[in-house]
């Protein structure tokens, strides 16, 4: 990560050990005590050396301890996810769309229950009624019958993508064939159909997302095959498409795709470029993953069982 003040790259520190939790805790306490004593001898104040969150990756101790540790890790992860959800919600509040100071209400079910969603058992769909109100940029949605979307813990509409909703009518023209890579729950594609797109091709690398999109499209009354198709894919098919989404948010960086006409494969290679940048992003993730595996292996290689 880039240090905000230093403007230099810095790496967070992870400490690995195979020592049992109590041994590690004793070692930490001992090191802290030694440090405090040294500082006291120097006349300084004792400052904790490091705030280490001790989470055993694979507790070898009793089953009960393992369960407790797992519960702690889960609670910690949940707290983190909740904080992230709150941060995302906070970021959207007061959002300005197209210059007009209008706030876009989030899908009702989702906006209030971003945190609640985390409590839903995996795979259990949660239903949220899309409720988009106010704002000139969203006026095209008003008066339309509500669009009911099923979402899951894994697949839902990211509030950060809300600005795309306002941009949709200008990005999609009547009769367009729309490609929607990374469709998730399919919200933008279904709205594209509503604005007059002739067909939408949904793709997502996640099978459950494609299933969910298909369900949502059927519930919304669009005809499969004629109005829409959906497939699990990381790649883009080679036909004429308009890309409705302008913003790709990958774990590492923001990726921005322009919303213009693309033709594959002969007349225009800009889609190829866009496609390549997505692929590159994807590859960099894979590379990161590989480097983790390699790092993990090098750690294991140095591990000598007692």
């Amino acid at each position: 990560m880039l240090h905000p003040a230093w403007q230099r790259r810095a790496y967070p520190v992870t400490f690995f050990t195979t020592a049992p939790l109590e041994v590690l805790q004793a070692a930490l306490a001992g090191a802290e005590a030694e440090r405090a004593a040294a500082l006291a001898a120097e006349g300084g104040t004792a400052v904790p050396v490091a705030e280490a969150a001790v989470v055993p990756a694979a507790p070898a101790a009793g089953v009960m301890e393992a369960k407790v540790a797992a519960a702690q890790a889960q609670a910690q992860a949940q707290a983190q996810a909740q904080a992230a959800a709150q941060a995302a919600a906070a970021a959207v509040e007061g959002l300005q769309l197209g210059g007009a100071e209008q706030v876009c209400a989030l899908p009702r079910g989702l906006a209030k229950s971003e945190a609640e969603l985390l409590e839903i058992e995996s795979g259990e769909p949660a239903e949220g009624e899309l409720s988009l109100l106010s704002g000139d940029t969203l006026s095209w949605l008003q008066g339309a019958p509500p669009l009911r979307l099923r979402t899951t813990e894994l697949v839902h509409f990211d509030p950060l993508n809300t600005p795309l909703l306002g941009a949709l009518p200008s990005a999609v023209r009547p009769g367009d064939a729309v490609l929607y890579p990374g469709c998730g729950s399919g919200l933008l594609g279904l709205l594209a159909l509503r604005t007059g797109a002739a067909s939408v091709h949904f793709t997502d690398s996640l099978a459950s997302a494609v299933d969910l999109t298909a369900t949502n499209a059927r519930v919304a009354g669009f005809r499969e095959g004629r109005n829409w198709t959906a497939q699990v894919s990381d790649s883009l098919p080679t036909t004429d498409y308009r890309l409705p989404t302008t913003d790709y948010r990958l774990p590492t960086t923001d990726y921005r795709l322009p919303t213009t006409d693309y033709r594959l494969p002969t007349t225009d290679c800009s889609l190829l470029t866009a496609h390549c940048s997505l692929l590159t992003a994807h590859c960099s993730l894979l590379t990161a993953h590989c480097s983790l595996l390699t790092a993990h292996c090098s750690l294991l290689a140095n591990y000598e069982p007692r």
Partner: protein
Amino acid sequence: MSFVVNEERRGLLLNFHAWVKAVRARLGDWWSDASDPLEGTALFGSRTSCIYNELEGLTSLLRYDSSTTTS
């Protein structure tokens, strides 16, 4: 890089190295290692060009959830 920043980095680095040394000394025969704050590589194990990815580590080893996809 300014002198102030350099000094701060150096101080924190020494701090961390002192901590790691003290903790490792107390762990005895138990295996331990850390990621290098400067390089992101293994601090004590054999060096490779591989950087330990914190986020991937948290999701893979501690099962933190970062798999949420969005539409």
